[in-house]
């Protein structure tokens, strides 16, 4: 079907029904398994990400209970070590990655006026590879003891420093589950990123030149390139680890002359871009939400694009700031301290531009906006603690302490998760056709924000007082008791907040108000189609003349394209 000659009055006939009636469980499963629709896959990504989020969140709560009081015996040391390993691995690879891919899948085609992703089947393949890699990781709890009857889930930490992962120190199969699961998930991430790049570059509707793409799409383009650069080193070192463990290779075997530091270089060449892979989608969501609820276009669009690309470039040259204490030369340490400090410049520009967008606007404090304001405040703190960590000498004190734990939770919860909540509330009406309930959402926002700060702010102080991360217990009298107890109390608020969130998702789906096509009075293309959008997205492929096509439609007297 040639989109250019598409008849606007033509309705695509409903696809032929196979199997059971619509609405039954088997029918639902069937639809999910066979679907190649980018919207359904997007929702499946987000849904399974949230599922893993709840599981990994419960693990975090158990960790906090163990640490609430000194010399607690709630958990055995090995159980605790498995919990923090699985919590970290799951939150990065099974929660963060799939949820951002879910947003990309759902929104990129809609925002650029395409009917689907470039490779729909590859898209489905990517989802299922991710999903089974998650199941594989969690199956380690049952399968990993193996013939050695040793170990269970992986307990080597989420960055699995060698030689702790060598056969001598990690018996059984726990590390293999970790390795294979990440190797497999990496394939899913790679194909999805290729798909995002091809879709963005090839399927834009008429008039949507690169300079008119929504910032959301721009940022995901950058993220997709970063994934393609970052994942191969991770996969490479996973394969080297398997060779070490099973085929007598000696890459990381220090007893045989291998190098323990080699693993760290490989891992962080992946790991640091990965941090930006996770936070740039947060920027993407904030860059859509803040303008709409400020009733103004984004301030300094070209600078925002340039800053994002710059962050991506710099992020490829900062990996060893995770390794300041590993014994590099002073030249090496200085280089990575400088490159890391440079990240602060484009990041600062972004924060100023978001505030500049709000300046002079008429701010509507709907749920997405509330979460984005929370994001701005918390990401500011995360950025500033990041600057402290970039000062290599200060980092010699701070690294591997609870300060670092606090820092990256401010990045990943205060930054990423808050924007994910904003994004979910913002596009919920589009995806499901119902408005999220404001009061339930407000309870979610207040409880979660309060709980988040109670939990993670004291961890900065515990770090200042010399508390190392990943300890399952500690003695009283070292000044850590109070901070840990406060930290654990915050979890109760966070859990209550999440409960409101889940209730809101279900309640609004059943009893929520009908949303209509464009409930927020927004400006990007996804709001021009119905809620939820039809399988083919747009009846006619739209044509755009500016960055805000719906603004042009709504304000024919004063359209954007006059100024761009």
């Amino acid at each position, binding site marked *: 079907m040639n989109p250019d000659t598409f008849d606007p009055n033509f309705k695509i006939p409903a696809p032929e029904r196979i199997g059971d009636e619509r609405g039954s469980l088997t029918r639902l499963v069937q639809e999910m398994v066979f679907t190649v629709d980018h919207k359904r896959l997007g929702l499946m990504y987000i849904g399974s990400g949230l599922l893993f989020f709840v599981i990994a969140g419960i693990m975090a709560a158990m960790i906090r209970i163990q640490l609430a009081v000194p010399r607690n015996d709630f958990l055995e*040391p090995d159980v605790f070590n498995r919990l923090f390993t699985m919590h970290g691995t799951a939150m990065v690879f099974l929660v963060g990655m799939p949820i951002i891919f879910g947003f990309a899948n759902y929104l990129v085609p809609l925002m650029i006026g395409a009917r689907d992703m470039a490779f729909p089947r590859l898209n489905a393949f990517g989802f299922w590879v991710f999903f089974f890699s998650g199941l594989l990781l969690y199956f380690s709890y049952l399968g990993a003891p193996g013939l050695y009857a040793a170990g269970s889930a992986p307990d080597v930490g989420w960055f699995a420093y060698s030689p702790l992962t060598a056969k001598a120190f990690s018996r059984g199969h726990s590390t293999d589950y970790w390795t294979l699961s990440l190797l497999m998930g990496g394939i899913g991430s790679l194909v999805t990123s290729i798909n995002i790049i091809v879709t963005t570059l090839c399927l834009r509707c008429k008039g949507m030149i690169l300079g008119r793409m929504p910032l959301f799409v721009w940022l995901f383009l950058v993220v997709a390139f970063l994934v393609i650069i970052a994942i191969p080193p991770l996969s490479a070192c996973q394969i080297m680890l398997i060779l070490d463990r099973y085929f007598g290779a000696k890459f990381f075997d220090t007893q045989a002359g291998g190098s323990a530091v080699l693993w760290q270089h490989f891992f962080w060449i992946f790991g640091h871009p990965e941090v930006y892979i996770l936070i740039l989608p947060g920027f993407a969501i904030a860059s859509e939400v803040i303008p709409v609820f400020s009733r103004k276009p984004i301030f300094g669009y070209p600078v925002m694009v340039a800053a994002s690309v710059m962050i991506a470039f710099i992020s490829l040259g900062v990996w060893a700031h995770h390794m300041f204490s590993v014994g590099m030369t002073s030249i090496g340490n200085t280089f990575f301290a400088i490159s890391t400090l440079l990240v602060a410049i484009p990041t600062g520009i972004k924060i100023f531009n978001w505030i500049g967008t709000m300046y002079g606007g008429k701010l509507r404090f709907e749920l997405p906006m509330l979460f984005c304001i929370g994001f701005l405040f918390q990401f500011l703190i995360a950025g500033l603690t990041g*600057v402290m960590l970039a000062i290599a000498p200060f980092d010699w004190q701070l690294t591997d302490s609870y300060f670092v734990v606090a820092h990256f939770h401010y990045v990943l919860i205060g930054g990423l998760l808050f924007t994910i909540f904003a994004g979910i509330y913002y596009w919920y009406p589009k995806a499901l056709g119902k408005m999220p309930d404001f009061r339930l959402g407000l309870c979610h926002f207040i409880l979660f924000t309060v709980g988040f700060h109670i939990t993670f702010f004291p961890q900065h102080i515990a770090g200042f007082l010399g508390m190392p991360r990943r300890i399952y217990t500690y003695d009283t009298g070292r000044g850590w008791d109070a901070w840990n107890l406060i930290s654990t109390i915050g979890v109760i608020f966070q859990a209550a907040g999440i409960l409101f969130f889940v209730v809101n998702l279900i309640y609004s789906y059943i009893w929520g108000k009908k949303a209509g096509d464009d409930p927020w009075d927004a400006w990007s293309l996804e709001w021009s189609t119905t809620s939820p959008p039809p399988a083919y997205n747009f009846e006619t492929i739209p044509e755009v003349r500016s960055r805000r096509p719906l603004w042009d439609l709504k304000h024919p007297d004063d359209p954007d394209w006059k100024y761009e």
Partner: protein
Amino acid sequence: MSRKKISPLSGGSDTRGEVDIFRVIAGAVRKGGSLVLAWVLAAPAPAQSTDGGIMRPVADMFQPLSRPAEMIHESAVLVLMITAAIFVVVTAMLVFVVWKFRRKGPEDDMEEPPQIYGSTHIELAWTVIPILITFVLILVTSRTIGEIQNAKMPEDALKIRLVGHQWWWEVHYPDLGIITANEIHVPVSTRTGKPRPTEIILESADVIHSFWVPQLAGKTDMVPNKRNRTWIEPFATGTFFGNCAEYCGTQHANMLLRVIVEEPADFDKWVANMKRAPGVPTEGMAAQGHRDFYGNSCVSCHRVDGTVAEGVFGPDLTKLMTRQTIGAGVAPLTPENLRTWVRDPQSLKTGCLMPDMKLLDSEVDSITAYLLTLK
């Protein structure tokens, strides 16, 4: 030497209570000003003890007592002040904008605000300012890195070789011929006279560990098949607390380190005592324990200087009773705890590499009695 049962951290003094959460918060509010620093300073004061000098269990990196830690502290305070200023300014901007430009009522929905697309001048301003701040930070950082990492040690500086094991520390004084474990003794330096820094060579026997005594120096990792180096130059006496700071397996949490900083005279006394080989007990329980110790497999892993016990897999026991703790800090070294440890180390430190030897009750008693003579 008999010891009363003490808490592992107070080392002889029971007077200091737990951290009172309200006192800490009240202290923070009272001090106001620099919020973060105030909180950190609200930590309890060090306690006095008889053997290890002043106990310093609160390893507060903002109360450095050694040259490299002080140099780090200096740049840390500068960075904290700069970031605090940025925080205040940007937060004020955010609060102002959110308050000033909030939707005031339904009349605000009638008309859209003026559509501003950007401004080159403003963009330039908020690009240049971060660049300048970053430049200052780069200068400070580069200088401090060099000063700490490339510091020249005097020829006669005390040298220590520290080897990390799962989950304890092996301590060598190569020039003095002393081997011990889990506790480092060093002489105190002076700011005015001849400096007495200690150079520490860091190695690992198995996985990666990390040396971290916050009041003395920042972290340096102990990487197998790689030799790292750090140094300390403490200006105050007392027992400083540190932890292994790189996750190293099951008992990472109980891989604790103490650095005992002494007056030079006390340090020399300690050295003299460490060089004296322990005698062999000739009568009573301890003599029986001596036979049991060498008759069981203890000697395969442990070393007692001047005897056939030459094992190097576990900590050196030559001067066991000069230490404050057992199991790398898991419990204070009391006769009761020692007995519990000999009977079943797993009950004190689950997962540690010393197995439950299934000794008879009589052997547990006698070996404990023998170990108590190693001082």
